[in-house]
């Protein structure tokens, strides 16, 4: 399960709208715990926007420079947090992982959040947990997304009811 605050949930989605038609990307900082029934719970305390270095194909690829990740990891450590996930957008493409997302996913136990952005507007946001013990048996599994204690559906209803 991925736990976000409303502010972080909205920030991730807004980032995808701002970089459209290019993919956005960023890092989720917080704490990871194993909850009831061995469910991994990644609780996010902060999101950090990262630059997409794939300027050659930014509409359907993203890459975060490892040097930037080193700095973000340092920032997390100083705040007492860990890197617990990553996010990116799929411009005019579903919020489902692609073969490339899977091949390039290496942070076992972390959440990979994808937001579909259609014609510049954020639509569905899904989270996938990278499970498994190694590269050889990893899997991206859909996980529940909770926003300020609400289910994602309830949070979306709540956000829709707030006048823009």
């Amino acid at each position, binding site marked *: 399960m991925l736990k976000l605050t409303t502010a972080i949930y909205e920030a991730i989605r807004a980032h995808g709208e701002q970089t459209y038609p290019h993919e956005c990307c960023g890092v989720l900082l917080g704490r990871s715990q194993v909850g009831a029934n061995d469910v991994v719970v990644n609780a996010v305390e902060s999101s950090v926007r990262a630059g997409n270095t794939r300027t050659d194909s930014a509409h359907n690829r993203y*890459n*975060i420079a490892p*040097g930037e*990740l080193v700095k973000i990891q340092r920032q997390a450590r100083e705040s007492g947090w860990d890197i617990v996930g990553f996010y990116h957008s*799929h411009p005019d493409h579903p919020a489902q*992982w692609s073969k490339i997302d899977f091949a*390039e996913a290496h942070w076992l136990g972390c959440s990979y959040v994808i937001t579909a952005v259609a014609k510049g507007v954020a639509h569905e946001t899904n989270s996938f947990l990278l499970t498994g013990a190694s*590269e050889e048996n990893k899997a991206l599994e*859909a996980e529940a997304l909770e926003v300020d204690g609400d289910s994602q559906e309830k949070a979306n209803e709540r956000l829709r009811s707030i006048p823009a």
Partner: protein
Amino acid sequence: MKIHIPTPLRVYTGKQDTVVVTAATVGEALSRLTTQHPELQKHLYTEDGKLRSFVNVYLNDEDVRYLPEKDTTAVTEADVLSIIPSIAGGGAAQREETNANLS
């Protein structure tokens, strides 16, 4: 020197986020790390002993791959090594690559 371990690899370091080793070079530091925590070996290196392509090693803020002396670069106690798996992906170039029905 300190070696920072990323979240997914801490399961092989007894949950430690930092491992302290005594070493004269980057390569020696990594060797000490995998000696202390042998299970890390297969997650960092291929079977023929090369660093896996998605594993980045940074000496302070420098990518070791781009240092003139690479893993023979000298280190001091004050230096910090960071192991950082890469982050990349994106919507498929060909839409049929999407695995919507598999997730």
